[in-house]
C-alpha cells in the first residue's frame, strides 16, 4: 500500500492542507486489470464513508494476495470540514459537491475538487460514499442519474444496498463529483447511508460486503470468500413519497427507521416543549418502507421528516 498526496496547499499559519489517498496494487502485474476509486468525506459532516474505507483498507491489508487491480481510497476529501464538523468547505462555506469539475485557476475549493477529479479520472469505477446529513437517517441506497443508468445500474445491484433510486437529470447536479466523473467515462455510483456526524457499524459492514462483491465480479480482487448480497428494491418499480413538516417545532418519532409501514400509520408528533402541546401528528401518506427518517428533532415548516418507498398505485 502506498499513501499518496493528491492535493496540497499551504495554509496561512503553519499548516498544510493535504488530501491523501491510499493505493493498493497487486503484488504482481496483471494485464488489463481494472481500477476502482472509493471516495468519501466530500461533505465534512459525513463520516460513514470513512468507516467503510477503514474496513476496506483493513481487508485489503489482510488479503494482499487477492488484489488483481488498483484500488484507490480517498477517505477525507473535505479534510478541513471533517476535522471542524463543517459540511461545506470552511471559510468559503461552499458545498464541495456543487463546484465540480473545478479548475486550477479557481478558488481553493475549486482547485481541490479539480485535483480530485483529475486523480480519479481513468478509474473504471468510482464510488462516492455519503451519509445523508445530520438531519436525516437513510438506509443504504444508491442514487443514480437516469442519464448514466445503463452503465451504472448493473454495478449498483452488486453493492449490497437496500434501495436504488434512479432520478432524473437536473442541471444543478452537473456540478457534482458523480456527474463529472461519469461524464469523464468513469462509471460512478453515489451511496447514501446512515446519518451525519455518526457511524452506523452494521451499514459499514453491509457496504463493505457490497464493495468486495463488486470488486470480485469486476476482477479487481480474486478470492474464495463468498460475498452474499441482498437484492435491492428499485425506484423503477414504485414511487417515493415525501413527508415534510407542516409546522415548526420538535419532532418526536413514533416509528423506527426502516420499518415497513401502512398508509396512515403514525410517523411521529411535532410538539411544543414550552406548552406541552402536540402541535401536529404526522401519518404515513402511503404504504411502504420508511427509508428516510428525520434524525435531528428541530424542524421548521417544510423540513423533511420522512421518505417512504411504496409501489405506485397503477403498478400495483
Amino acid at each position, binding site marked *: 500500500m502506498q499513501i499518496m498526496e493528491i492535493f496540497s496547499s499551504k495554509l496561512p499559519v503553519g499548516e498544510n492542507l493535504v488530501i491523501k489517498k491510499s493505493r493498493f496494487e497487486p503484488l504482481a502485474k496483471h494485464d488489463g486489470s481494472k481500477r476502482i476509486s472509493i471516495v468519501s468525506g466530500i461533505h465534512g459532516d459525513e463520516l460513514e464513508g470513512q468507516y467503510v474505507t477503514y474496513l476496506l483498507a483493513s481487508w485489503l491489508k489482510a488479503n494482499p494476495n487477492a488484489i488483481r487491480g488498483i484500488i484507490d481510497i480517498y477517505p477525507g476529501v473535505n479534510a478541513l470540514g471533517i476535522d471542524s464538523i463543517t459540511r461545506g468547505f470552511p471559510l468559503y*462555506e461552499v458545498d464541495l459537491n*456543487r463546484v465540480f469539475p473545478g479548475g486550477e485557476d479557481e478558488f481553493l475549493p475549486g482547485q481541490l475538487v479539480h485535483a480530485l477529479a483529475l486523480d480519479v479520472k481513468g478509474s473504471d469505477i468510482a464510488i462516492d460514499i455519503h451519509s445523508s446529513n445530520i438531519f436525516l437517517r437513510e438506509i443504504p441506497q444508491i442514487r443514480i442519474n437516469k442519464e448514466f443508468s445503463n452503465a451504472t445500474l448493473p454495478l449498483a445491484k452488486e453493492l449490497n444496498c437496500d434501495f436504488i433510486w434512479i432520478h432524473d437529470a437536473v442541471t*444543478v447536479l*452537473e456540478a457534482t463529483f458523480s456527474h463529472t466523473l461519469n461524464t469523464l467515462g468513469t462509471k460512478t455510483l453515489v451511496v447514501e447511508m446512515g446519518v451525519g456526524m455518526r457511524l452506523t457499524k452494521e451499514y459499514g459492514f453491509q457496504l463493505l460486503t457490497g464493495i468486495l462483491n463488486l470488486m470480485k465480479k469486476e476482477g479487481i480482487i480474486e478470492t474464495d470468500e463468498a460475498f452474499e448480497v441482498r437484492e435491492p428494491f428499485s425506484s423503477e418499480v414504485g414511487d417515493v413519497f415525501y413527508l*415534510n413538516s407542516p409546522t415548526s417545532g420538535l419532532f418526536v418519532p413514533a416509528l423506527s427507521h426502516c420499518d415497513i409501514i401502512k398508509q396512515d400509520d403514525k410517523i411521529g408528533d411535532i410538539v411544543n416543549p414550552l406548552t406541552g402541546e402536540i402541535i401536529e401528528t404526522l401519518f404515513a401518506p402511503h404504504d411502504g418502507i420508511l427509508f428516510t427518517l428525520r434524525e435531528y428533532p428541530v*424542524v*421548521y415548516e417544510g423540513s423533511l421528516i420522512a421518505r417512504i418507498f411504496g409501489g405506485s398505485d397503477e403498478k400495483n
Partner: protein
Amino acid sequence: MKKIEIFKLTSLNREPLLVEGYLFEGSDPEAPSVAIVGAMEGKTILPLYSASKLIDFLKNSISDSKKILGNILIIPSINHYALNINERFWPLDKTNLNMMFPGYDKGETTQRIAKKVFDAIEGYTHGIILETREDLSTCMPYVKEFKSGFEDLEDAKKFGLKIIHYKALRPTDTVSLQYNWQLWGTKAHSIVCPGETELNENSDEIFESLVNYLNKNNIIKHKFLSAYESAIITSEDIEIIKTPKSGIFIPTKKIGTQVIEDEIIGKVLHSLEGKVIHKIIAPCNGVITCSYKNALILENAVAFRIIKNS
C-alpha cells in the same frame, strides 16, 4: 406606501420570521414596475442598507407621490434569522436561499420561502437582486448579468455603475433568482455589492444606482446625480492575480485604483515570522476591481482582479 406580508414562518424557539415587502403604488398604470430583493444572506450589510435606504427615500424624499409612476415593491430582507446571528445562509440547514428558485411550495423550508418570495415578485416588468460575492473577496459594486439568453444589457446600463460583468451561466446558476426571474419574463439584474460589514462614505453608491435605474426606466420621476457609462466586461477582460504564498495579506492599492504594469499592489508576510515572502505585482495596466478580503490569505488564492485597460 403599504406593507404587505410576503411570508411568515414560525420557529421552535425564536420569534416568527415575518418578511414584509414595502409596496409603493404608481400613479400611472401603464408605467413599468419593479421589485427589489435585498438581503438573502446574513453576513453583509449593503444589500439590506441599500434596500432600506431606498424605502426611506421613496417615502420621505419624493414629495409628490405622483412622481412614483410604476409600482415598486421592495423586500429589504428575506433572511432576518441569518442577519441577526451573523450566519451567511439559512441558519438551520445552511442552505443558500439564492439556490432555491423558483421554489417549491411542498418542498424543504428554504424552497418554500423561495416559492413565496417568487410568487410575490413574479409579474413585475423589472427585477433587481442585491447580492454579494460568493468567494472571499470584496469588490467595486457591479451588475452581474448571466449569458442566459434572456439578459438585457442595455437595461443593465441604466444603473450607471461602472461595470457590468457579463458572465457564462454555470449549472448552479440555473437555480438562482436572476435566472428564474428572467425565465418568467422579468428583466432581472443582480447588483453585486462589496462584502463589507461596516458602512462608510461610499456605501450609498448602490442606493444611488437603484434610483438611477428607476429614473431611467420611468418608474419614478426624480432628478438625480449623473451616472457612469457602464463598461461591459467579460472574463477575457479580467486579469486574475493569485498569490503563490499563503500568509498575512496586505493590499497596498485600494479597489477602484488605476494601476500600472509592474507596480507593487500588495504583499504577503510570513504569518509567524513577519518577513515579506511575496510581493504582488500588477501584471498589466488597469483598474483593481476585486481584492481578497481576509487578512490571512490562502496559497493560490486570488488576491486581486484587474480589468485590463484596452
